[in-house]
C-alpha cells in the first residue's frame, strides 16, 4: 500500500491528464460531429459530399495512424501543433467526430419525417427546423450510442501514451518497468483509474437515458 501512497501524485496527475484528454476531445468531437451530421442531411450536395468524405476518411483510418500523421506527418507541410497534448486532443477529436456524426445522423433519421415537414409548413427554414425541431428530438434517441462513443473515446486516450503524453497508460509503463516486484499493484491502480472514468460515465449515461427517454 505504501507503494501506491508513494506514487499517488504521479497517478493522480496521470488520471487528470487522461480525464482532460477525454473531456476536451469529447466536447470538440460533439460539436464537430453534430455540424458534420447537419451537413450530411443538408439539401446542399457539396456539403453532403464533404461530410461523407470526412466520415469515411476518419472512421476507416486506425487512430494510431491519425496520431502519427498529426505528430510527425504535418511537419512536412510546415504545420505544427503548439504542444503534444494538443496534438493528442486534435487526433482524438477528429477521429471521434466521425463516430459522433454517424450516431447523430442515425438519431436525425429516427425523427419521424412528419416533424420536419410540419416545421417547414409553419415557415421554418432548414437551419431553424433542424436546430429547434429535429436535433432536440434526435439527441434524445442517441444518448445510448453517444454514450458508447464516449466510453470508446475514454479508452482510446491511451494511444496518446505512445505520443509523449503522460496519461494513465504511460504511467503504467513507467511504474511497471521501475517496479518489477509490484506489477500486480501497478495494474490494479491503473485499471481502477480507467474504471473510475468509464463506469461512472456508464452510470451517468444510464440516468440521462431514463430522464430523456421519449414516451411514445
Amino acid at each position, binding site marked *: 500500500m505504501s507503494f501506491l501512497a508513494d506514487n499517488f501524485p504521479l497517478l493522480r496527475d496521470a488520471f487528470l491528464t487522461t480525464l482532460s484528454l477525454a473531456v476536451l476531445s469529447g466536447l470538440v468531437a460533439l460539436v464537430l460531429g453534430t455540424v458534420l451530421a447537419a451537413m450530411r442531411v443538408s439539401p446542399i450536395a457539396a456539403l453532403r459530399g464533404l461530410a461523407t468524405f470526412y466520415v469515411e476518411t476518419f472512421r476507416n483510418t486506425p487512430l494510431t495512424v491519425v496520431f502519427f500523421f498529426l505528430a*510527425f506527418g504535418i511537419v512536412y507541410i510546415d504545420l505544427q501543433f503548439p504542444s503534444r497534448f494538443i496534438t493528442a486532443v486534435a487526433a482524438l477529436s477528429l477521429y471521434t467526430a466521425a463516430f459522433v456524426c454517424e450516431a447523430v445522423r442515425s438519431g436525425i433519421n429516427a425523427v419521424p419525417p412528419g416533424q420536419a415537414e410540419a416545421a417547414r409548413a409553419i415557415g421554418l427554414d432548414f437551419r431553424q427546423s433542424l436546430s429547434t425541431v429535429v436535433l432536440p428530438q434526435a439527441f434524445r434517441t442517441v444518448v445510448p450510442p453517444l454514450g458508447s462513443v464516449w466510453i470508446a473515446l475514454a479508452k482510446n486516450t491511451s494511444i496518446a*501514451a505512445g505520443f509523449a503524453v503522460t496519461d494513465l497508460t504511460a504511467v503504467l509503463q513507467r511504474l511497471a518497468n521501475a517496479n518489477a516486484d509490484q506489477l500486480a499493484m501497478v495494474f490494479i491502480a491503473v485499471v481502477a483509474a480507467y474504471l473510475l472514468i468509464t463506469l461512472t460515465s456508464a452510470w451517468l449515461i444510464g440516468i440521462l437515458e431514463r430522464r430523456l427517454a421519449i414516451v411514445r
Partner: protein
Amino acid sequence: MRITRYAAALAAAGVVLAGCSSDAGETADDAADNTAAVATDVEFEPGSTMAEIVEAGELRVGTKIDQPGFGLANTAGDPEGFDVEMAKLIAAKMGLTEDQITFTETVSANREPFLQNDQVDMVAATYTINDARKQVIDFAGPYYVAGQDIMVAAGNPEGIEGPEDLAGKTVCSVEGSTPAETIRSEYPEAELVLYDVYSKCADDLRNGNVTAVTTDNVILTSFVAGDPESFELVGNPFTEEPYGIGVQKGADDFRDFINDVLEESFEDGTWAEAWDRTAGAITDTEAPEPPTVDRY
C-alpha cells in the same frame, strides 16, 4: 506490345526477388559458419534445469526484435544480433543446435512476466541488471556494460557535452525505461519527452522538436550509423548499464552454467567474434574489454 512489356517487368521483378533471396541465404550461411560448435559430449545432472531443457529438446529464449546490433529481426523474421549470439553460444554448450532454439519477442515491459510464467527459459534482451528485478528473477552475467549517452542533431548546434547541459532543454526517451528514470531523478531540470519507441524520438530530433535523445549508447550508435547526416553522438556515457541474461528465480544451476559459458567465451575470443559480426559491424567499433561476471 503491352503484354511483352508486362512480361519484361515481371521478369525484372523476378530477378530482383531472386537476388534478395540468395543474399539472405548467403547471410544465413555466413552466420551458420561463424556460430560456436555444438557440444556433443555434454551431460547434466538429472533434475537440473539444464537437463530439463535438453530433455525438452528446446531452449526458449526471449529477445528483442527491434534493437539493431543486439536483437533485430531480419527479413526472414529471425532475430540477429549480439544478444542472439549469446543465446546461441549458451545453446551450443548445452548440446542444442540453432534449430532447437525458440526465440520469442520480449519488450522492455514484459521480460519479468515471461520468465515468471515459464514462457521462456532465459531472456537476452539488452536487459539491465538491477535490484528490483533481482527480487523476481535472477541474472547471469553481465556480458556487456552499456552506458547512457546523448544523441543530438548533427553539428551539435546547442553545444551539449553531457547531461548537465540538458537543463531547460527538451530531451526525448522512452516511457518506462531506465534512462528516462535517470534523467528524471538525477537531472530534473531537463524537460523529458517520452514516447513508446526510440524511432519516434529520432523523428522528433530530425524535425527539431527536441534538443536531444538519451538512452544506452549502443542504441544511439545504431541510429547515428543509420543517418549520420542528421545525428551525432555526444560520446560521454554517464551511467553504467550492465546487460545480464535473465533466468527464472531460483534457477541457480542454470545461472552458474551460463556464467561459466560467458567466462569461457570471454577467454577464448568467441565473445569478441560475436561482437565483431553483430553490434561491432553496425557501429564500426572494436569489441570492448569483457566485463567481470557477477556471481552474487
